[in-house]
């Protein structure tokens, strides 16, 4: 399969999860959200969303509560660093409890803007 007809003659990527492949496997630590500390979760209102804003890979949803797409989250920890209420903590993947559910299916349904 060739790329002769590709639209660009450069390396070009549009924002959306998955442009670099299933990058979740790169992760050493995973961000875990504590909804008791998370502002939109606690207030049940659209608020804060700093994690969504800062996520460089657009894998955090702007929802109540925000969700993290572990299929693509590389574990950079920027969300945990930026969260003003310390609602996100980084947990070593190796220390993850055995009964913790692995994300089963790919949640990616095609490109979507970071809205």
């Amino acid at each position, binding site marked *: 399969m060739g*790329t002769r007809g590709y*639209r*660009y003659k*450069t*390396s*070009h*990527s*549009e924002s*959306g999860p998955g*442009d670099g492949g299933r990058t979740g496997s790169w992760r050493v630590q995973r961000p875990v959200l504590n909804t008791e500390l998370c502002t939109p979760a606690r207030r049940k209102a659209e608020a804060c969303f700093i994690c969504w804003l800062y996520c460089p890979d657009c894998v955090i949803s702007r929802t109540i509560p925000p969700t993290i797409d572990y299929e693509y989250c590389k574990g950079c920890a920027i969300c945990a660093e930026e969260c003003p209420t310390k609602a996100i903590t980084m947990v070593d993947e190796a220390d993850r409890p055995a009964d913790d559910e692995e994300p089963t299916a790919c949640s990616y349904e095609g490109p979507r803007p970071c809205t």
Partner: protein
Amino acid sequence: MHIIENGNVAAALGVKLAGAQVIAAYPITPQTPLTEKLSELIEAGEMQAQYVPVESEHSALAACIAASSTGARAFTATSANGLLYMHEQIHWAAGARLPLVMCVVNRAVGAPWCIWNDHQDSISQRDTGWIQMYACDHQQIIDGVLKAFSLAEATSIPVMVCYDGYLLSHTYMPFVVPEEEKVARFLKPFKPAYALDPDNPANLNTVTLPDIRMDVTGEMAHGYMEIRYLLQEDLRAALTIAQQTEDAFKEIFGRGGNALVEPYRCDDAEYIVVGLGSLTYQLRDVVEILRGEGLKLGVLGVRLYRPFPDQALTEALQHARGVIVIEKALSYGYEGALCSDIKAALYEHIQDRSRAPFVKGMIAGIGGRDIRTPDLTATLRAAIAGTPEEGPDWIGIKL
């Protein structure tokens, strides 16, 4: 309109006429008066452009890369060590396929410090994927800037317009300033192949993998190797587009015509001297002197050095007995890069090698060493009479 001005002003007026929208440059001798002139034109409101004062040449080209990525017509200029300081961004601009134009006012490269002319600076950027044009006089500088924007935008490949420091940049010469109405016919408004758009955000020149891969939309995207192959393919195609650009220019302005090589008395020449830049015009006097002595000599100026016009050069040189390449730069440890390139072209294209002309490399004018006409005539007489020796001769060396 004829005016008498220096080469740097010729370049600046060309940039103004081309309607460059963003200029980012850092002053360096002998380029400085060019950027000063541009900032004056912008300050006086004679030119509608943003002048970005930067802290280095690396930043100058980085700013132009950013400007060009948004779809602006961008220009920078530099010389010698400034050009080398840009080196990383020079590769980048070509790989990003941005139609920038840069004037390189040719100057010797340190160490030791030397502000005078040779071609080591731009020749050392030969392999960056830029198109390189060499001007021989002020008319070719001002016209060359316009052609450079046209060629860059037609190919999505950046173009260097190289001209000799001091010999052209600071000398005064009459030249025609192209009429705005004709420029408008020649150089169409810039329609970028891709321009950054805040409503459709994208990452440009992101990391590529060794192999091709699916992009976010599910389309198979190039790997690094495909992107680089396309640059090479388009550079080779630029040989044709450069000549088409030249023809279009000649149609409108009535001058020029030789985009690739510029011959002078080569038709019946038994020996042809080849070079770059203003030296090839000086060599016309040498040709006349030696023809007066019965030596059938011609001179061939290489106007476009990258992409290399191998076929045009072969056609011009193949019937000669000998080719003497005089260069103001060399690939240290071997010989002049142009000499090697010409040998390769002749080896590639002449089937019967027993009929191929000899190719003799010579080095001259390094660090602004005066290239005297009597030295050139004496050296060429000897090269024609004698058996070519191995390795380049250095004209005017005083060891």
